[in-house]
């Protein structure tokens, strides 16, 4: 953002937030820090740790499915694997993912603020996150083992099973609160702490997406909180609210569960779209096309996304009228997502595209998200959904959206912002190699699921008919390629933190938003002087050749 450059005078002598000495030093200086940047890093550590656990569980599940029959684990263990994989990946990785790491680190910087509105609440959210995560892992070692209900905790099975359902429920409950408080913090921050001149339509697009996400977090999360609490109480006291044996209605549970959990899908994807909107103009060296359309489509997705939940329940015994209404609304929610895709593509058109690693991940995002989105629209058609419900097609679809979408956007963000966050550069060549492993592995892993699901392979089965063997075999091999890619990528990123070349330049990519005008890594209070914003973001002179930069590797 072309703010008045004269206003920002960064003082080279001021220590970065990494070296900053506050009230506490050492490890305490991190665990008790209310600096939004340090909290972002704390989240990064937690989220990545859980991500690795989730990936490992996924790897084991794929290994079990490499051949028909029992391969490495029993059916019960397999059920616990996919439940834990779901709970960890959804509640501990994807939902907090981009907002908690990059939102915390960059949201205040992008609007020209020194911190979020409630810094102590922010730290408290991280401790809630940690508590929730610990509870989820604790269920593994407790007698009875982790829940085997699937991450959806469907009644009546979740009331009957002997596994540690309550532990997993409390984990999700606490994590919900963590996510909700982060949302509350972001909304207040965006409303109250924008720098002078930073009007709504001068905000970077990722801020819009964090803002829209925050609203969904605040409004939808309480519903899941109360619903999961009721399941726990149902198990403890038999109040009968959901238990069909006592007159309760299990379909009502599904309604309430999805009133939150469908909007939660947008909690996962909207920030990812924000990242994409941030990266595309920088590497296409072109002003973003349709700024207002992208900004408002974030709000529109948040709004329409709250109206479509029952499309998860077409086969659960809804009324015909209800099915028709929700099918129609599901079609509508595809529109704002498509608007974004068209605007991104239009931004790329005639741009001078620099295929750096962040851009590769973003282009992959657009491709994979389009597959995920279109297969999603297919399922919105009731007649097709009845055929596809609970098949591997669904698993393929939401991995294309969640991993191919949000996951890839997060990897893009790592490669885009890590040099700013730590002042170190990764090996660019290795990063590209890792990308191709991940991209190819990903498609080998999930595309066969779409095919075999279409042919009738059910999801959540540890065994299958022999005719599905080739697909499962390809898929499992894909998982290995993907994991090799992930290992290379994280090795490269972690190694850069230790021994990567130091980045001294403030603006390594030629970005036009505020974070590129401050030191790398930023100083404790981000800005020595609060900037005054005068122009809208992403102003590039069209088709201008990229500014010649020194290659840092």
């Amino acid at each position, binding site marked *: 953002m072309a703010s008045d450059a004269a206003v920002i005078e960064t003082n080279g002598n001021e220590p970065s937030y990494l070296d900053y000495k506050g009230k506490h030093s050492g490890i305490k200086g991190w665990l008790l820090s209310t600096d939004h940047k340090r909290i972002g890093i704390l989240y990064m550590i937690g989220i990545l740790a859980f991500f690795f656990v989730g990936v490992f569980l996924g790897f084991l599940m794929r290994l079990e499915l490499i051949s028909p029959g029992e391969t490495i684990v029993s059916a019960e263990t397999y059920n616990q694997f996919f439940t834990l994989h779901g709970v960890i990946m959804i509640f501990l990785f994807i939902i907090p993912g981009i907002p908690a790491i990059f939102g915390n680190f960059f949201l205040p910087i992008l609007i020209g603020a020194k911190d979020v509105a409630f810094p102590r609440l922010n730290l408290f959210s991280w401790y809630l996150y940690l508590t929730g995560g610990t509870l989820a892992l604790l269920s593994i070692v407790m007698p009875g083992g982790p829940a085997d209900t699937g991450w959806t905790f469907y009644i009546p099975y979740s009331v009957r099973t002997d596994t540690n359902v309550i532990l997993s429920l409390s984990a999700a409950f606490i994590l919900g609160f963590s996510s*909700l408080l982060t949302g509350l913090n972001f909304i207040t921050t965006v409303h109250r702490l924008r720098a002078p001149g930073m009007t709504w339509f001068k905000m970077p697009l990722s801020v819009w997406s964090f803002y829209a996400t925050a609203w969904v977090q605040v*409004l939808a999360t*309480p519903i899941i909180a109360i619903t999961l609490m009721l399941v726990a109480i149902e198990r403890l006291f038999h*109040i*009968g609210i959901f238990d069909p044996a006592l*007159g309760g209605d299990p379909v009502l549970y599904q309604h309430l569960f999805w009133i939150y959990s469908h909007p939660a899908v947008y909690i996962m994807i909207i920030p990812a779209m924000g990242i994409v909107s941030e990266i595309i103009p920088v590497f296409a060296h072109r002003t973003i096309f349709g700024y207002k359309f992208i900004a408002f489509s974030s709000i529109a997705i948040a709004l329409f996304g709250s109206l479509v939940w029952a499309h998860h329940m077409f086969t659960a015994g809804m009324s015909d009228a209800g099915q028709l209404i929700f099918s129609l609304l599901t079609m509508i929610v595809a529109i704002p997502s498509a608007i974004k895709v068209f605007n991104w593509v239009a931004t790329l058109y005639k741009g001078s595209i620099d295929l750096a690693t962040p851009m590769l991940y973003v282009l992959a995002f657009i491709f994979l998200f389009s597959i995920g989105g279109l297969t999603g629209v297919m399922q919105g058609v009731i007649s097709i959904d009845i055929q596809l419900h609970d098949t591997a097609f669904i698993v393929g679809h939401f991995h294309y959206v969640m991993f191919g979408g949000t996951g890839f956007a997060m990897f893009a963000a790592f490669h885009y912002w890590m040099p700013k966050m730590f002042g170190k550069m990764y090996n660019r060549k290795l990063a590209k190699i890792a990308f191709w492993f991940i991209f190819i592995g990903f498609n080998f892993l999930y595309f066969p699921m779409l095919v075999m699901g279409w042919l009738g392979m059910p999801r959540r089965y540890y065994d299958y008919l022999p005719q599905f063997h080739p697909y499962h075999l390809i898929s499992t091999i894909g998982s290995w390629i993907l994991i090799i890619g992930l290992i290379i990528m994280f090795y490269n990123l972690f190694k850069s933190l230790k021994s990567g070349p130091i980045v001294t330049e403030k603006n390594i990519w030629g970005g036009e938003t505020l974070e590129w005008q401050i030191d790398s890594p930023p100083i404790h209070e981000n800005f020595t002087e609060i900037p005054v914003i005068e122009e809208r973001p992403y102003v590039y002179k069209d088709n201008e050749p990229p500014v010649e930069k020194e290659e840092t590797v």
Partner: protein
Amino acid sequence: MSTNTLVHVEVNIHRDDIGARLGMWLFLFTELILFGGMFIIYSVYRFTHQEEFHLAAQELNTIIGTFNTIILLTSSLTMVVSIVAIQKQKRNLSLLFQMLTIFLALFFMVNKYFEWTAKFHHGIYPGSDTLLNENSGHILFFGLYYMMTGLHGLHVIIGVVMISFMMRFTFKGIVTYDNYVKLENTGLYWHLVDIIWIFLFPLFYLIT
């Protein structure tokens, strides 16, 4: 929002009472929607078990319910005037009103306690044999009754704890006539607890 209102929030250790209240309101919405989930469940079961809900509601004591409504409304009044008192620099008066609020809240809880224990004596509690022999509408009504009034009671207790802290803050001069946003936010919370009861009362006690 115009940029003018943002000028004063420049420093890191800033004071932004509007922001603090904005955050509190957002939190209140989450509380409202938490109860909203229960109200959704209530409305669905009332829709599917209308007659049974009518009969079950007859077992609740309307008089205690009305009495508790009056107590809670009055406590909302004492809460809000405690803020007026602190604005007018009358610290002791404010403390008195805060204490009255706590007193009324505890009074509410004592009533609730007697109401619940009376039900328990009649064998009406979740999972009891008496209740399980009744029809499903009856079980659902009392399941919701215990769940919703219980959750509300929990909020009353949290409110009492919060107001106790505010009394301490007022006493120690942390909450003062020119810096009372903490007390104000506690008040907002307390009024929300009141609003929820305003809806719970007719839905459980007045549908006979």
